[in-house]
Every structure is written in C-alpha cells, then in structure tokens.
C-alpha cells in the first residue's frame, strides 16, 4: 500500500511542484497518472523513490515512512520500488543481458539465478533474440522494453513507469501496455505516468489527474478526455461558487 498524506513539494519558485496531495494506492493496483507538462507527475514519482524529499506531508510505502529512511538504507526501498525512467537510464556500454542482469546482481543473486531471471524477463518483453546486443543497436520501443525488463527482473512490489510509451507508435505503445498489464497481473502495483490519451481511454483503469501540482481528480475508470473535462468543470464550478459568495456578500 502506498499512501501520500498531505504531501507538498516546494522547489522555492513561485508555484509549488506538488501541493497538498493525498492519495492511497492499494497493493496490486494499476494506475494512470496523467496531467499536462509541469503538473508534478514526475516529482511525485521521484518522491516515491526518495530521489526527492517532500517539503510537507508523509509518504508511506507498506507503512514505512519513506522520508525518514537513512541514506545508507535507501537501496532497500529502491529494491521494493522498481522504476522505468523517462530517459530510460540504460547503461550504453553494456549489452541487453548485462543491463537487465545488473538489476539482479545488486541483490547478490547467483550467476544461475541471474541467467534464469534475465531469460525469463526477456521472454516477457519478447526480446530473447537481442540478448547480446548493445542499447545503441535497439529501436526506441525495444529500449523501453529493456528498461521495463530491468525494472521488474528483481521482482519489486511496486513498478513506477514514467512515460513508458513516449515517442512510440500506437502499436508498440499497446505492446508495452500489455507487458505492464502482465506485470500487474503477477501482483505488482503499477503506476504509469503518461500523456497517451488513447491508451488511458482504452484501459478504463483508475486514473489520477494532476494539474499545477494539485491532484484534481481520482477516477476509478478514468478517461483522458473525460478527466480533462472534469477538471475544467471542477474549476468552473469553484469559480462559480466564489462568484456566488461574492454576490451573497454584496446582498
């Protein structure tokens, strides 16, 4: 279970990157996190992996307060929370096998376990024929899959994917989404940050919408266009309320 309790993040500018965000994500959930650029989606993910500290509020993962984990113990959190980075962060001088294997090496697994784990996960992302290839020789979609494979090979309980379908054609994006759904079916909580409205609309999964650092909607079966409209409606409604209050005061 992931819990964000009144979480804010202030980088010192005019606007807060995150403002009083509270949300609960149960184990095994599959969630889309959407919103325009600069809404605070990536900041939220970075708070979950403790790349950043919240300015206010608490973040609990399985009941453990992420903010108070000592630096020297952070690796234990990051083994629990896998991440597919927006820029993928693949090791360009290592082969596909080595890139994925490193996710298990850091856990101290044996060579046999690593070989089996890597082959299994390569099967899941359908890239078993690319085992000895370097990332520079792969297409963008293949690189995305390798990044996913590395994030899941160690069996994390949570997978955060930051724009896993960015710059991909619709067909490849659907393939990536299928992989993430499979990962979710294995029991992993999956949180996907995306701008891909077609995918969000097609999946009909829980969707959190952020704007200007605020969580503006949390829909059980969200839709990209629907949530945007809801945000506008909500904004319009609150403006209308303010106007009514002003009128009442004048009267």
């Amino acid at each position, binding site marked *: 279970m992931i819990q964000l309790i009144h979480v804010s993040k202030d980088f010192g500018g005019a606007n807060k990157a995150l403002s009083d965000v509270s949300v609960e994500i149960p184990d095994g959930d599959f969630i889309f996190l959407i919103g325009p650029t600069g809404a605070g989606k990536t900041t939220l993910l970075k708070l979950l992996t403790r790349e950043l500290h919240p300015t206010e509020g608490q973040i609990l993962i399985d009941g453990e307060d992420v903010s108070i984990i000592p*630096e020297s113990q952070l690796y234990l959190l990051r083994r629990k929370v896998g991440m597919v980075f927006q820029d993928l*962060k693949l*090791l360009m001088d290592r082969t596909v096998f080595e890139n994925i294997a490193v996710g298990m090496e*850091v856990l101290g697994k044996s060579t046999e376990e690593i070989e089996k784990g890597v082959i299994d996960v390569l099967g899941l992302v359908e890239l078993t024929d690319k085992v000895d290839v370097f990332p520079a020789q792969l297409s963008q979609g293949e690189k995305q899959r390798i990044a996913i494979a590395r994030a899941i090979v160690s069996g994390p309980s949570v997978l955060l994917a930051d724009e896993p379908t960015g710059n991909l054609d619709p067909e490849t994006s659907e393939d990536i989404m299928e992989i993430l759904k499979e990962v979710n079916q294995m029991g992993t909580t999956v949180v996907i940050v995306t701008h891909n409205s077609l995918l969000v609309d097609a999946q009909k999964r829980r969707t959190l919408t952020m704007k200007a650092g605020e969580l503006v909607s949390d829909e059980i079966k969200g839709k990209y266009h629907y949530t945007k409209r809801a945000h506008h409606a909500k904004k319009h409604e609150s403006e209308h309320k303010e106007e009514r209050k002003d009128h009442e005061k004048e009267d």
Partner: protein
Amino acid sequence: MKKKTSSLWTHIRRSPYQSIAAVLTMFITFLLTGIFLLTTGISFAILQYFESKPQLTVFFLEKAGKSEADQLTTILDGTGKIASTKFVSKEEALAIYKEQNKNDPLLLEMVTADILPASLEVTAKDPRFLGELEPIIKQADGVEEVVFQKDVVDSLLSWTNAIRNVGGVLAVLLAIDSLLIIMTVIGMKIALKKEEIDILKLIGASPWYIRMPFILEGGLYGLTGSFIAWIVIMSLVFAFRGSIVAFLGAIPVVQIVLGNMLSTTSLLISAGFLVSMVTFGFLLGAIGSLVSLGRYIKF
C-alpha cells in the same frame, strides 16, 4: 565475484595511463620503504650483534694470566653487577688471531702466543654499571688496558637512529603521496562513472556494491606496486649478496639469511617480507579509494 573482477578489469582498462601512474607511485613508495626497512633491519642486527658482545675487554700485562683473571672475576662477582665473564688465554688469543687472518700467511708468520695478551671479556647486567666497574678493574693486579664496546655501540646507535628517523619520515611522506595519488585517480574514475553510479543507486545497489570495485582497484594498484618493488629489492639483495656477506658476514643473522638464499630461514624471511609489503600495499590503496569514495559519493 567473477562480475566484480571483470568490472574491476574494465575500470582499469578504460584509463590505463592513470592506472600506470598509480602503480608506479606505489612502486616507488614501496621500493624506498622496503630498502629503508631492510637497512633498518640490518642496522639493528649489527647493533644487536655488538650489544651481545662483551661490553668491555680487560687486557692483562704480559706476565699476568689466569690467576689475575680469576682474582678479578671474584672481585667483579662480588659487586653483583656482572652477567658473565670469559677468560681468553694467550693461546686462545693466538687461535682467534689465526682464524681471523687465515688468508694472510704473512701476518701469521710474525705472530706467536707470547706477544698476544691474555684477556677477560666482561658483560655487565646493565651497560649503565660499566662506569662503576671501570675503576675497580683498573685498580686490579696485572691489568694493562680496558677497552669498551660502548664507544662502538654508541656510534652505531646514533647511525641506526639517524637511518630510522630519516627513513621513517621519508616512508611516511611517500605513503601520504601514494594515498593522494590513489585518491586522485579513483576520484577521476568515480567522476567518469558518475552516471552509472547514479543509475546503480536508483535500481537498488547497496553502498558496498558500488564501492567495492573502486576499493579493489585501489587495493590492486597498491598490491601490484608493492609486489614489483619486492621483486626489485630481492633482485638487488641477490646481486649484492656477495659484498654484503663479505662485509657483514660476522653477524650471524646476515650469514643465516644471505649465506644461502635457498635455505628455509631465508625463504621464510623473503616470504614474510613479501606478505608484509603486499598487505600494506593493498591496504594503502584500498584506504585511498575509501577516502575518495567518501568524498565523491554520498550515500
């Protein structure tokens, strides 16, 4: 471990000039430190040799002999400050002289037992007692001259101290220099691999998983440098073995170690020297890496 070794090898291979600089610095440090240690060791052996010798030798007049020596021994024993005494008769003195000059027949021809004085070698329980014993010995019957080993030992002691002090300071300065070089080299390597380190941290690598290849790398530089230094030092010792034995052969330790370099004692001492050098080399390199890691990577 296999992965760590290959990662370590990759680290070294990607920046060979820095690696060579680190190994060379370590080599020079351990070469000079090793030579200093050997010199100090030999100095102490020489010192010990002289200290184990009788601290003073009493030479008797030509007519005097065993009876005067016995008298003197009784007097000295009465002071309670004597560890041992040994009487050397004229005949024994001649035998010693012959042994020392066996390669020079001309010197042997001219000497008989009559012209060599009998003597008494005296060792005090503490060298500080020698000053008190001197007037007692000089007043005894038949005594011609008293020769102190103290003068030789004092001179040797001042040399040994000088070697120890200069060598010690030099070794410490070189060790600091090596440490700084290792820190710089490892620091540069950390900077080169910063992106990879950041990725490893984000995917759950423990601090020790990240540190270990760098620590091993620093350790390997120290180990390699000290091992090469050991080879060079042993080659030098082997090359100059004859001269050393000819000059210091009277000292038992030198004779045992260098007399036969394939003897068990000699091999054990060489192996001990090697183990000490490479252990210290590895530790010096590893500590340099650790300091650098603490400075450049925050966990």
